[in-house]
């Protein structure tokens, strides 16, 4: 039985080295533009950075994947096609994509380039996954965070390409790549610009002892004195649901919480999952080193048949709470 592959994020060359040194099997990253879904200020890789990253990783038998997982802009396909061409030229091990038009381009131009289907494609069923495999030769699908572990097991029984699932980090409560919430509040979206709840539309406002966070002028949360604050990601905000002003503000969509599926390793293995993915290209190298190291340790114990140790990652999670998310039915 093959071991899980551990797929780790990097937003900067320093983070990539941290991930490689901490035990990643593969590191995923993006170019420094709108072609990837973490197009944040000060983040990501120039072409030269990617060349250096590939050298550093390959010398240590670690793979590099490039995410080109936004949806190319109509009338301006050039930057996305060039990103694919450059990824192939730079000898990366796979590209992670979502747009059918771009997948078709990559499959035709670079038949030897390994294609992975991004979570942004939200392929949640056998029929959709087969479509990408049969049409574009996609070799691996990153599953959207809408499926339970039993659903993943059933799905793996019917498809013959690898599956990769998120095990740690920020959690989208919505089906990825099918969400325009950020776009509604700010005009900038994950699909188009590669940003969600972008910082240039965020404002923090002191209201006496309370701190309000706003996005595009909408109040996403108000933190009382002494309460831990959060970044105003729209779906992790507090809102009042229902008609009338009587309702109490609540985390209607999702609490500020992080996915941690470390306890589900046996179930994920039984479900036929090939690779485990850590979220967080926007997080610092301190986070990446700590989380990757913890997962490497857990995977080694698991592979050796020892019990998976309880590794404290509490310090790394948003809002200080962890969840197994959609993998268990109760989340719904």
């Amino acid at each position, binding site marked *: 039985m093959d071991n899980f592959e551990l797929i780790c994020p990097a937003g900067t060359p320093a*983070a990539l080295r941290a991930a490689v040194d901490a035990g990643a099997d593969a590191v995923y990253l993006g170019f420094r533009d709108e072609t990837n879904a973490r197009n944040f200020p000060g983040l990501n890789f120039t072409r030269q950075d990617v060349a250096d990253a590939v050298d550093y990783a390959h010398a240590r038998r670690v793979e590099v994947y490039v995410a080109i997982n936004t949806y190319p802009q109509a009338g301006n396909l050039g930057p996305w096609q060039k990103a694919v061409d450059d990824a192939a030229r730079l000898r990366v091990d796979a590209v992670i994509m979502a747009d059918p038009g771009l997948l078709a381009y990559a499959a035709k131009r670079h038949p030897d380039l390994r294609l992975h289907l991004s979570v942004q494609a939200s392929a949640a069923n056998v029929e959709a996954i087969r479509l990408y495999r049969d049409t574009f030769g996609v070799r691996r699908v990153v599953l959207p965070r809408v499926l339970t572990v039993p659903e993943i097991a059933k799905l793996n029984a019917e498809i013959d390409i690898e599956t990769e699932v998120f095990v740690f980090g920020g959690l989208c409560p919505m089906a990825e790549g099918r969400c325009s919430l950020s776009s509604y509040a700010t005009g900038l979206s994950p699909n188009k610009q590669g940003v969600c709840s972008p*910082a240039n539309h965020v404002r923090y406002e002191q209201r006496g002892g309370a701190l309000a966070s706003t996005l595009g002028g909408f109040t996403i949360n108000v933190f009382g004195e002494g309460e831990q*604050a959060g*970044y105003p990601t729209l779906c992790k905000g507090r809102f009042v649901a229902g008609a009338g002003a009587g309702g109490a503000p609540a985390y209607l969509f999702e609490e500020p919480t992080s996915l941690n599926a470390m306890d589900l390793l046996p179930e994920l293995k039984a479900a036929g999952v090939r690779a485990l993915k850590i979220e967080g290209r926007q997080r610092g190298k*301190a986070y990446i080193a700590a989380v990757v190291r913890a997962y490497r340790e857990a995977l080694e114990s698991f592979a050796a048949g020892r019990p998976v140790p309880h590794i404290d990652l509490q310090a790394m999670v948003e809002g200080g709470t962890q969840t197994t998310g959609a993998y268990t039915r109760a989340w719904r």
Partner: protein
Amino acid sequence: MRDPDVAQTVSVSNPLAGERARRFETGLSRAGLGLVPRLGRRASDALLARLLRLLADRHPRAFEALRGMPDARVLIEPVDAPVALLMRVGPELSLHALPRGADGVGEAGAADAVVRGPYARLLDLLEGRIDGDALFFRRELSISGDTALILALRNTLDGEEEMDLVADVASIAGPLARVLPVLRRNAGPVLDRIEAARRLLPPPLRRGIERVEARIIGTLPGSGA
């Protein structure tokens, strides 16, 4: 309470010693920063310009990235130090020290973003030791103005390996040579306390502190330790 999101990256073998060393180092550099404006505007600007040139040599990637940002000003304001720093990013990259409070308001008013908090947190931020999102979770740091600018600054600094501003500052021999006597005089009580503490500490911790002191007085340039 220990700050969970700050990596303990001070390069000493004993983690506890590392934590303590970091604390002393932070206190001393804060005291040093407080003295910068006493040099007079021209001398303090020259000192800070020299620090930037040093950054360009030691951290060329971060330096180029800061210069590549659109022209903007970030006010970095430690609430527990008498001095704030106004960093101009973009092609005109520069650093100015301003006295905190009323006198600084005029120049601080030109800032596009302000990040305010305890000196120790701000040093962690500038050295890229705090995880990006954690910056926003903690109420110790408050942010106003252009959030994207602060995020860009933080991401840029985090992209560097092991940035160590205290060591960098300490290795500027010329101007610091003039500052250090003042620093030592004013930081005397702190050093006395270190000395007192040292006598009570077990050997590994003692070595950690010696290393910090060595860095501060410049006998271990660059402090690769």
